[in-house]
Protein backbone atom coordinates (compact mmCIF):
# COMPACT_ATOMS: atom_id res chain seq x y z
CA UNK A 1 0.00 0.00 0.00
CA UNK A 2 2.75 2.44 1.02
CA UNK A 3 4.79 1.39 -2.01
CA UNK A 4 1.89 2.21 -4.34
CA UNK A 5 1.35 5.58 -2.66
CA UNK A 6 5.05 6.46 -2.86
CA UNK A 7 5.13 5.51 -6.51
CA UNK A 8 2.08 7.69 -7.11
CA UNK A 9 3.71 10.56 -5.18
CA UNK A 10 6.88 10.34 -7.30
CA UNK A 11 4.88 10.06 -10.47
CA UNK A 12 2.70 13.04 -9.51
CA UNK A 13 5.63 15.36 -8.70
CA UNK A 14 8.10 14.29 -11.40
CA UNK A 15 5.57 14.33 -14.23
CA UNK A 16 4.91 18.00 -13.45
CA UNK A 17 8.59 18.95 -13.46
CA UNK A 18 9.51 17.55 -16.87
CA UNK A 19 8.71 18.37 -20.48
CA UNK A 20 8.02 14.79 -21.62
CA UNK A 21 6.04 12.97 -18.91
CA UNK A 22 4.76 10.53 -21.53
CA UNK A 23 8.30 9.09 -21.77
CA UNK A 24 8.74 8.70 -18.02
CA UNK A 25 9.02 5.13 -16.74
CA UNK A 26 8.94 4.55 -12.99
CA UNK A 27 9.37 1.03 -11.65
CA UNK A 28 9.80 -0.27 -8.14
CA UNK A 29 11.42 -3.43 -6.87
CA UNK A 30 12.12 -4.91 -3.46
CA UNK A 31 15.73 -4.69 -2.37
CA UNK A 32 17.47 -6.19 0.63
CA UNK A 33 15.62 -6.10 3.95
CA UNK A 34 12.74 -3.66 3.96
CA UNK A 35 14.18 -1.57 1.16
CA UNK A 36 12.29 -0.58 -1.97
CA UNK A 37 14.14 0.77 -4.97
CA UNK A 38 12.33 3.16 -7.31
CA UNK A 39 13.97 3.30 -10.72
CA UNK A 40 13.25 6.27 -12.93
CA UNK A 41 13.91 6.50 -16.65
CA UNK A 42 13.43 9.81 -18.44
CA UNK A 43 14.24 11.52 -21.71
CA UNK A 44 17.83 12.75 -21.33
CA UNK A 45 16.79 16.41 -21.61
CA UNK A 46 14.49 15.98 -18.59
CA UNK A 47 17.11 14.49 -16.26
CA UNK A 48 18.48 17.88 -15.20
CA UNK A 49 14.98 19.09 -14.32
CA UNK A 50 14.55 16.24 -11.83
CA UNK A 51 18.04 16.66 -10.39
CA UNK A 52 17.73 20.45 -10.10
CA UNK A 53 20.29 23.12 -9.30
CA UNK A 54 23.04 21.56 -7.18
CA UNK A 55 20.88 18.44 -6.83
CA UNK A 56 18.33 20.25 -4.66
CA UNK A 57 15.24 18.84 -6.38
CA UNK A 58 16.28 15.18 -6.26
CA UNK A 59 17.49 15.64 -2.68
CA UNK A 60 14.04 16.94 -1.69
CA UNK A 61 12.33 14.04 -3.49
CA UNK A 62 14.58 11.49 -1.76
CA UNK A 63 14.03 13.08 1.63
CA UNK A 64 10.22 13.00 1.27
CA UNK A 65 10.42 9.46 -0.03
CA UNK A 66 12.15 8.45 3.20
CA UNK A 67 9.54 10.22 5.31
CA UNK A 68 6.77 8.29 3.55
CA UNK A 69 8.57 4.95 3.76
CA UNK A 70 9.47 5.35 7.45
CA UNK A 71 5.74 5.35 8.22
CA UNK A 72 5.74 1.59 7.75
CA UNK A 73 9.29 0.99 8.95
CA UNK A 74 10.66 0.72 5.42
CA UNK A 75 13.45 2.35 3.46
CA UNK A 76 13.12 3.76 -0.02
CA UNK A 77 15.73 4.64 -2.62
CA UNK A 78 15.22 6.66 -5.80
CA UNK A 79 17.59 6.02 -8.69
CA UNK A 80 17.67 7.72 -12.05
CA UNK A 81 18.72 5.22 -14.68
CA UNK A 82 20.87 6.72 -17.43
CA UNK A 83 22.31 4.50 -20.18
CA UNK A 84 21.45 1.46 -18.07
CA UNK A 85 23.38 2.73 -15.00
CA UNK A 86 21.82 4.14 -11.83
CA UNK A 87 22.60 7.69 -10.75
Amino acid sequence: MVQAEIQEFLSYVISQLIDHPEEMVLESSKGEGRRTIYKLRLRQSDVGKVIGKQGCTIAALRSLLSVAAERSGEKAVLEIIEDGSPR
Partner: protein
Amino acid sequence: MNTSSNPRDILDSMLVLLGFVCEVKAFPTNRGLTLQVYTADKDRLLARSGAVVDDLQLLVNRILQARDKEAPRVQVDVEHWREMQDDSLVQKVRRLAESVRMTGLPIQLEPMNGYERRIVHNAFKEDPDVVSWSPPDDARLKRITLRKRSDGGKASET
Protein backbone atom coordinates in the same frame (compact mmCIF):
# COMPACT_ATOMS: atom_id res chain seq x y z
CA MET B 1 -4.47 12.37 -9.93
CA ASN B 2 -5.34 16.04 -9.77
CA THR B 3 -2.87 18.20 -11.73
CA SER B 4 -4.35 21.56 -10.80
CA SER B 5 -2.05 24.57 -11.04
CA ASN B 6 -3.43 25.90 -7.76
CA PRO B 7 -0.56 25.86 -5.19
CA ARG B 8 -2.92 24.74 -2.43
CA ASP B 9 -4.16 21.77 -4.47
CA ILE B 10 -0.57 20.78 -5.40
CA LEU B 11 0.56 20.74 -1.77
CA ASP B 12 -2.62 18.98 -0.64
CA SER B 13 -2.13 16.22 -3.24
CA MET B 14 1.51 15.74 -2.21
CA LEU B 15 0.66 15.50 1.48
CA VAL B 16 -2.15 13.01 0.90
CA LEU B 17 0.18 10.76 -1.14
CA LEU B 18 2.80 11.01 1.62
CA GLY B 19 0.19 9.70 4.07
CA PHE B 20 -0.73 12.88 5.94
CA VAL B 21 -4.28 13.58 7.02
CA CYS B 22 -4.37 17.36 6.91
CA GLU B 23 -6.05 20.54 5.82
CA VAL B 24 -4.23 23.16 3.73
CA LYS B 25 -5.34 26.79 3.81
CA ALA B 26 -3.90 29.55 1.62
CA PHE B 27 -3.27 33.02 3.05
CA PRO B 28 -1.93 36.01 1.13
CA THR B 29 0.85 37.71 3.16
CA ASN B 30 3.28 40.58 2.57
CA ARG B 31 5.79 37.97 1.34
CA GLY B 32 3.37 36.35 -1.12
CA LEU B 33 1.11 33.34 -0.68
CA THR B 34 1.53 31.20 2.43
CA LEU B 35 0.11 27.70 2.58
CA GLN B 36 -0.65 26.75 6.18
CA VAL B 37 -0.90 23.03 6.90
CA TYR B 38 -3.04 21.89 9.82
CA THR B 39 -2.55 18.28 10.86
CA ALA B 40 -2.60 15.98 13.87
CA ASP B 41 0.67 14.55 12.53
CA LYS B 42 2.56 17.80 13.05
CA ASP B 43 5.67 16.18 14.60
CA ARG B 44 6.31 14.01 11.56
CA LEU B 45 5.92 17.01 9.27
CA LEU B 46 8.24 19.16 11.38
CA ALA B 47 10.84 16.40 11.71
CA ARG B 48 14.51 17.08 10.91
CA SER B 49 14.30 20.70 12.15
CA GLY B 50 11.81 21.65 9.47
CA ALA B 51 13.72 20.06 6.57
CA VAL B 52 10.55 18.18 5.50
CA VAL B 53 8.64 21.47 5.22
CA ASP B 54 11.55 23.00 3.27
CA ASP B 55 11.50 20.04 0.86
CA LEU B 56 7.74 20.36 0.34
CA GLN B 57 8.11 24.10 -0.27
CA LEU B 58 10.93 23.57 -2.76
CA LEU B 59 8.94 21.00 -4.76
CA VAL B 60 5.72 23.04 -4.81
CA ASN B 61 7.71 26.03 -6.13
CA ARG B 62 9.55 23.88 -8.71
CA ILE B 63 6.21 22.57 -10.03
CA LEU B 64 4.77 26.09 -10.24
CA GLN B 65 7.91 27.43 -11.97
CA ALA B 66 7.95 24.50 -14.41
CA ARG B 67 4.56 25.74 -15.62
CA ASP B 68 5.33 29.44 -15.42
CA LYS B 69 8.88 30.74 -14.96
CA GLU B 70 7.49 33.96 -13.48
CA ALA B 71 5.23 32.19 -10.97
CA PRO B 72 5.42 33.94 -7.58
CA ARG B 73 7.07 31.87 -4.86
CA VAL B 74 4.84 30.33 -2.22
CA GLN B 75 5.74 29.60 1.35
CA VAL B 76 4.76 26.37 3.11
CA ASP B 77 4.17 26.52 6.86
CA VAL B 78 2.82 24.14 9.48
CA GLU B 79 0.47 25.75 11.97
CA HIS B 80 2.55 28.99 11.90
CA TRP B 81 5.76 27.16 12.95
CA ARG B 82 7.85 28.75 10.19
CA GLU B 83 6.43 32.18 10.96
CA MET B 84 7.68 31.83 14.54
CA GLN B 85 11.07 30.51 13.37
CA ASP B 86 11.45 33.45 10.98
CA ASP B 87 10.57 35.96 13.71
CA SER B 88 13.10 34.45 16.07
CA LEU B 89 15.80 34.52 13.32
CA VAL B 90 15.13 38.23 12.70
CA GLN B 91 15.26 38.98 16.44
CA LYS B 92 18.55 37.07 16.77
CA VAL B 93 20.29 38.87 13.89
CA ARG B 94 18.96 42.25 15.01
CA ARG B 95 20.59 41.63 18.41
CA LEU B 96 23.89 40.81 16.65
CA ALA B 97 23.51 43.92 14.50
CA GLU B 98 23.44 46.05 17.63
CA SER B 99 27.05 45.05 18.30
CA VAL B 100 28.01 46.01 14.72
CA ARG B 101 26.26 49.33 15.22
CA MET B 102 28.09 50.00 18.51
CA THR B 103 31.59 48.76 17.63
CA GLY B 104 31.69 49.19 13.86
CA LEU B 105 33.20 45.69 13.62
CA PRO B 106 31.65 43.27 11.10
CA ILE B 107 30.07 39.98 12.21
CA GLN B 108 29.76 36.80 10.18
CA LEU B 109 26.56 34.83 10.75
CA GLU B 110 26.21 31.05 10.75
CA PRO B 111 25.75 29.33 7.34
CA MET B 112 22.20 29.77 6.04
CA ASN B 113 20.17 28.50 3.12
CA GLY B 114 18.65 30.83 0.52
CA TYR B 115 15.33 31.14 2.31
CA GLU B 116 16.96 32.19 5.60
CA ARG B 117 19.33 34.57 3.81
CA ARG B 118 16.38 36.28 2.12
CA ILE B 119 14.80 36.88 5.53
CA VAL B 120 18.02 38.40 6.90
CA HIS B 121 18.60 40.61 3.84
CA ASN B 122 15.00 41.83 4.03
CA ALA B 123 15.45 42.66 7.71
CA PHE B 124 18.36 45.01 6.89
CA LYS B 125 17.09 46.44 3.62
CA GLU B 126 15.98 49.69 5.23
CA ASP B 127 18.47 49.75 8.12
CA PRO B 128 20.30 53.12 8.15
CA ASP B 129 23.47 51.77 9.84
CA VAL B 130 23.94 48.07 9.12
CA VAL B 131 24.12 46.27 5.80
CA SER B 132 23.99 42.51 5.12
CA TRP B 133 26.22 40.93 2.51
CA SER B 134 26.63 37.37 1.24
CA PRO B 135 29.26 36.10 -1.22
CA PRO B 136 28.01 35.99 -4.84
CA ASP B 137 28.78 32.30 -5.45
CA ASP B 138 26.42 29.38 -6.08
CA ALA B 139 26.89 27.62 -2.74
CA ARG B 140 23.67 26.41 -1.15
CA LEU B 141 24.73 27.46 2.35
CA LYS B 142 26.44 30.82 2.75
CA ARG B 143 27.54 32.98 5.64
CA ILE B 144 26.12 36.50 5.68
CA THR B 145 28.33 39.31 6.95
CA LEU B 146 26.75 42.19 8.84
CA ARG B 147 28.82 45.35 8.60
CA LYS B 148 28.46 49.04 9.16
CA ARG B 149 26.90 50.73 6.16
CA SER B 150 29.29 52.94 4.27
CA ASP B 151 28.19 55.49 1.66
CA GLY B 152 26.69 53.66 -1.26
CA GLY B 153 26.86 50.31 0.56
CA LYS B 154 24.37 47.83 -0.88
CA ALA B 155 23.13 44.50 0.35
CA SER B 156 23.76 41.47 -1.80
CA GLU B 157 20.63 39.36 -1.78
CA THR B 158 21.91 35.96 -2.76
